[in-house]
């Protein structure tokens, strides 16, 4: 209880009290858990709120920044990473957090996602993966598992999903991790590592939408779906000892990559030095 009270005091220091609460998310939604974990990670790193920006795109996750007392920007659908790239270029000293849903980050914003990773620009991309378009009522998203029923796949989804973390590794991100909204301490740890990272860092957070996907597929109550995140997930270390068949349908949690690569805005400082040296 004492720990809980201390944590809510931490959250209170970062929430925007001028903003009318409660938030817009459904009861039981995991996005609030992600927001709280981000706050604790930022608090743990003792960052100055003035030096933190949080940008988002459109969708349920897109509504996150307005609640938190940073420099916040709710941009257009899919484009948050591109907005953040401009901000980071002119304010390289800022910690720029970009929160996105899976549709936002990987369908309409998929191009920006892979290019931000390729550039290794120092942004923290937090992808809340609910495997659907929650705000518009549960349509298929680029991470909807094959066979699942959605509002636009009433006979079952026939496409294969993007593995977000693996995609980010291949595209060149410096740090990539995956966790779930059930594994809150682990999530907080990964967020802290990601925010500390100089280069492009991705944290994928599994948080299935119970209001839309859960109901359409009869996955049970929010609490039951939360237990499913516990039961259907395993650590990267454990996954390594299993066959492909045994891993089928499981969420693999862990740090997929943590590597030192030159960060884009720091490389651009060298460009400025070269340009000014050549001019003289």
């Amino acid at each position: 209880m004492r720990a809980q009270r201390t944590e809510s005091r931490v959250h209170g220091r970062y929430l925007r009290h001028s903003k009318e609460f409660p938030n817009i998310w459904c009861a039981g939604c995991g996005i609030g858990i992600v927001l709280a974990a981000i706050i604790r990670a930022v608090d743990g790193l003792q960052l100055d709120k003035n030096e933190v920006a949080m940008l988002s795109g459109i969708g349920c996750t897109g509504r996150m920044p307005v609640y938190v007392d940073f420099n916040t920007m709710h941009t257009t659908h899919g484009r948050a990473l591109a907005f953040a790239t401009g901000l980071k270029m002119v304010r390289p000293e800022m910690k720029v957090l970009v929160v996105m849903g899976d549709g936002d980050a990987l369908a309409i914003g998929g191009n920006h996602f892979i290019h931000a990773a390729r550039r290794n620009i120092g942004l923290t991309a937090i992808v809340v993966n609910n495997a659907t378009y929650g705000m518009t009522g549960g349509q298929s998203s680029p991470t909807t598992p094959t066979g699942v029923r959605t509002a636009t796949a009433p006979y079952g989804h026939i496409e294969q999903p993007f593995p977000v973390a693996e995609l980010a590794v291949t595209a060149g991100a410096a740090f990539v991790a995956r966790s779930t909204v059930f594994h809150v301490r682990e999530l907080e740890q990964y967020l802290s590592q990601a925010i500390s990272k100089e280069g492009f860092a991705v944290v994928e957070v599994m948080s299935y939408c119970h209001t839309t996907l859960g109901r359409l597929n009869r996955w049970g109550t929010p609490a039951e779906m939360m237990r499913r995140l516990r039961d259907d997930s395993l650590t990267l270390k454990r996954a390594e000892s299993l066959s492909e068949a045994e891993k089928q349908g499981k969420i693999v949690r862990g740090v997929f990559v943590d590597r030192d690569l030159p960060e884009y805005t720091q490389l651009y400082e060298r460009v400025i030095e070269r340009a000014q040296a050549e001019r003289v």
Partner: protein
Amino acid sequence: MPARLMQGDEACAEGALAGGCRFFAGYPITPATEIAEILARRLPQVGGKFIQMEDEIASMAAVIGASIGGAKAMTATSGPGFSLMQENIGYAAMAEIPCVIVDVQRLGPSTGRPTSPSQGDVMQARWGTHGDHPIIALSPSSVRETLDLTVQAFNFSERYRTPVILLMDEVVGHMRERVELPRAETIKRVERPVTTVPPEWYKPYEDSVSDVPPLVPFGEGYRYHVTGLHHDERGCPTDHLEKIQAWSDRVFRKIDSSLSDIILYEEDGIADANVLVIAYGATARSAWHAVKLARERGGKIGFLKLKTIWPFAEEVVEHAAARLHHVVVPEMNRGQLVLEVERVVARNKVHRVNRTDGEMVHPGDILAAIEERIL
């Protein structure tokens, strides 16, 4: 400063630097690529930043992100890229983020005929993004004017917290002319208004006396929210109808109440004219040539060159055409800005000269249209 042979796109890049531009994001497209290439070289020399983005949507987004970070920011493109930028241009209008978008027009629609000149994006510059919003668009007709209007575009964007579109065309962009460069100290730069209130009182969308509330960059201790949703004075989303209406009224008022500052034009011989020619961009060069030829033949021809095309120079046109029966409007499109002239002047007095095959409107065609009215 000495005279130089300079290309229009180069003048745009130099004008951007002179106007204080310190960030450019773009994507290659003819006939605007030179602007990006020059700024890729020049911006880091002055401590600015250049980035080639993955597409024009991202370019426009990065420009807005850089502007909220405090840099004067610009992108440059042509028709196909301008289409892709429209959603984020609307975001800049909604969130009132200063930025400059250069569209070096080429013949469309679609890929069209790369890269022949056109003035086909006039209406897109006004209404390309969805929803009611104010916009400023300037259109240069020479290399030197490109330099001056690029500076002006930055000044307007900062003064009015609005996206400003510089509507060039392939002729002006690729043409080379001898240009007397202005001395640096003669160039007037407008800086973003600063706030005098402490962070806890700051409202980025305050309905203030000037209608243009100061915009404090991110990272300077004023933490606030920016959104493309309709918002209140603090920037937070709102469903209150009176606040939504107040925003709409204010952003239109901030432009409408400053038309005398924003509307730029040149006029010649209007007082005793029988026929008035109204033109802008590269077509103004053909038009001016035709006016001189007609005058040599004894015609009393007035000439009005519009440098600001949005907002439309209603009062200027109305006044210039008041006692005239004939107004000739040549354009490298099927008639876009002429719709505004017809609205203000009366349709039966307005005569169109159009061309949409990728060639300039020739002076001879405009001259013929003028002489048809005199004889």
